[in-house]
């Protein structure tokens, strides 16, 4: 990187690294892994800064790198699936903060989804991208995006429904 490019790159890192980190956190579920992903993403952005700088949306380029790296990591770890443990919510427990429990369950279930499905959900419901943007970013069609979103939501719904059954049975006990 040329010295003249350093200020612009520095500004980019300061402006966008937090957003990249949050997306990485949702894709990986773990803080230290998210940090590694963002670090690697920013290194690649730095390496290709002259090309990225001239692109219309350097942020989109960086997000694409991040998603690709998350996919790579998932493929390497495939077969070693880790699902976060339930945080001590016992059967039959009536939780006055039911909404929080549901959100916690959603996040745990999100991490158990295949990486592609997880990525489309994060890009749609956290990054607020539309189907075409997600498809372009992930190199898949908008139709594939829609079907993955539908399947992902279906899996998450089953978790929420199970949570509701737990709550109801707990309340009756």
């Amino acid at each position, binding site marked *: 990187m*040329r010295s003249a490019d350093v200020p612009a790159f520095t500004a980019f890192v300061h402006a966008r690294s937090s957003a990249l980190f949050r997306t990485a956190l949702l894709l990986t579920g773990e803080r230290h892994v998210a940090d590694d992903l963002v670090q690697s993403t920013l290194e690649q952005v730095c*390496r290709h800064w002259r090309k990225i700088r001239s692109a219309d949306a350097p942020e989109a380029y960086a997000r694409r790198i991040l998603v690709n790296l998350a996919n*790579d990591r998932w493929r390497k770890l495939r077969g070693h699936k880790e699902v976060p443990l339930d945080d001590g919510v016992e059967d039959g427990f009536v939780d006055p903060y039911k909404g929080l429990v549901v959100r916690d369950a959603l996040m745990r279930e999100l991490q158990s989804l295949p990486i592609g499905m997880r990525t489309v959900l994060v890009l749609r419901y956290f990054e607020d991208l539309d189907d075409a943007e997600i498809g372009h970013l992930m190199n898949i069609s908008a139709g594939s995006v829609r079907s993955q979103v539908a399947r992902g939501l279906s899996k998450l719904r089953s978790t929420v429904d199970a949570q509701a059954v737990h709550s109801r049975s707990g309340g009756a006990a």
Partner: protein
Amino acid sequence: MKDHELEQELAAAMRDRSRQEPPYSYDVDGLIGSVRRRRRRLQAGAAAAVAIVALGAGFLSRPDHDRVSLPVQAPTASSVVLPPSPTASTSASASASASASASASASASTSTAASAPKPADPARTTNTLFLAALRYQNPATRSQVDPVEVAALFADESAYRRIWGADSTGVTCGSSVDGVLAAGEVLLYQGVERLDRAPAPTFDGSTGKVTDLTCRTVAGGSKVGDPTVSGFYGGLVTAAKSGDSTAMSRLGRQFVTANLRSAQGPTAGTCSSTTPPFWLADNPSSGTLTHGWTVNLGGPYDFPIEIDENAKVATACGK
């Protein structure tokens, strides 16, 4: 819970989760430093590879019986005023006499050279030179080639005129080609067929610019080159020229892993390019059982690929 409620709950859950962990503050100097260190290592490796090939071919010190002289080009190269290189004797007044546009380019290059006196990386120059030749030799991409930028790759104007010539085929040993594999030595392809003559550029040690280029005979045999790269990308280029729309899936089955085809669909291994005008693969890398290249199919960006132990493209475009 209704659909829209589930979607709202999911979005809220994601926002909650993302706020639970404060982001790190990333060290920009550290990032830049690590990238620069890596780049220096790669440049050192590439320069060593080029030097080894050059010394092996022997063209730096002695004539070689199997090397033929470069075809002499008619001195009809585009009239281009070379931007002065740091060691060139071209005077400032010479540049001043150039046309306005050429002077502007020359001035820009001069200021760049003044602020970055490091010699150009021979591997980078090789990449730029052969990409320019591939672009020039394809009528559809010829207009993308800037003669001033091409001329700046050479040590002086006479080298540019002698080697690039009128139509760039001096760079590719007198033939028009649509594929280049550069791994220290440079191999030329027409479709999936490798030419039996290969260019060997010589670089100025202090500037890294091209001073000469000879063409040598390449021995036959499938061990020279990379059959997967030339078979797949050469096949795609041939298919694009002939309008064969069925070739991509056939070549994909032959040269791309099922996993990658499943992940990337019908354009697997090409970074979504469907009708590449040419291909260039360089920057080789190797692992225990795999090896990789950086590929350009005529687009603005290069992309990495990795070839597995079954000689199939296993990753491309970072996937």
